[in-house]
């Protein structure tokens, strides 16, 4: 097991692993997304209070959960980069940032589209919403700093500090609805033990959640590959790969 992990940490092994995995992960993600969205939009019953507007849950909740998951992953990778100076951890951390930023932006925008008909306002400076906005800026900070210094390793380490320090915002986003009076509703699906929605609403949501996770994983794998290619452009394995790829390209 450890040998496998150790081998995976080498750039050429990770690149080949990502090449094998990414098409399956991306393809399955799109198939599950089509199933989840069709189920959620056509077959799930309307909510007794929110009516059909509740269906926004099928895009909003997966994006929100993944934005937190990706930030946590990014902070762990950042810690590994700072403590063990792992090149692959730097690459994975920087690959996660734009994906997390897209999903955070989707969370905020779909939340606004939910808030307007439910609360009567596109935006309120509520703890949950504000903390999610801070998350967007943290992702942005990692992206900007990740390419700010000419030496990519120094740049990645600077970005890793933001990722690690910013982790304090993740529990604030998650538990803000419990800690403070909030306009945002409490956890309905991801509350441990007792989800507050029925099974026929929950199953498509779990499918959408899995689909979004797979699509995010696909994007992270591909972005990590590009980062590796940029960093290792002068190495023998990249030169060999380039010759092979250019032979195959149309």
């Amino acid at each position, binding site marked *: 097991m450890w040998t496998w992990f150790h081998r995976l940490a080498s750039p050429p092994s990770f690149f080949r692993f990502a090449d094998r995995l*990414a098409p399956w992960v*991306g393809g399955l*993600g*799109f198939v599950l*997304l089509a199933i989840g*969205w069709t189920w959620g*939009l*056509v077959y799930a019953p*309307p909510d007794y209070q929110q*009516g*059909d*507007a509740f*269906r*926004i849950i*099928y*895009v*909003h909740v997966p*994006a929100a959960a993944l934005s937190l998951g990706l930030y946590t992953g990014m902070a762990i990778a950042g810690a590994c980069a700072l403590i063990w100076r792992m090149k692959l951890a730097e690459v994975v951390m920087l690959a996660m940032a*734009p*994906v997390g930023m*897209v*999903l955070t*932006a*989707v969370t905020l*925008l*779909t939340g606004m*589209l*939910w808030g*307007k*008909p439910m609360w009567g306002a596109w935006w309120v400076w509520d703890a949950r919403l504000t903390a999610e906005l801070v998350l967007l800026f943290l992702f942005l900070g990692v992206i900007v700093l990740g390419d700010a210094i000419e030496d990519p390793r120094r740049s990645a380490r600077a970005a890793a500090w933001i990722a690690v320090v910013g982790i304090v915002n993740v529990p604030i986003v998650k538990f803000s609805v419990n800690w403070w009076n909030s306009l945002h509703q409490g956890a309905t699906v991801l509350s441990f033990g007792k989800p507050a929605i029925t099974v026929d609403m929950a199953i498509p949501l779990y499918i959408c959640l899995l689909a*979004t996770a797979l*699509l*995010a994983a*696909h*994007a*992270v*794998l*591909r*972005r990590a*590959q*590009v980062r590796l*290619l*940029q960093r290792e*452009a002068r190495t023998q394995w990249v030169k060999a790969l*380039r010759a092979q*790829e*250019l032979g195959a*390209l149309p």
Partner: protein
Amino acid sequence: MSQWLAMGGYGAYVWASFALTAAGLVWMSLAASRARRNWFRNEDEDQ
């Protein structure tokens, strides 16, 4: 069909949310795959 599209009067919000998410997810996946492919092409031109 039109009743379903109307989403009980919330159609604009529901469809805008799904359209926006679709755009985000498709861009996220395709841009990442394209970046990988383009790297080899651009490197070839730089040589």
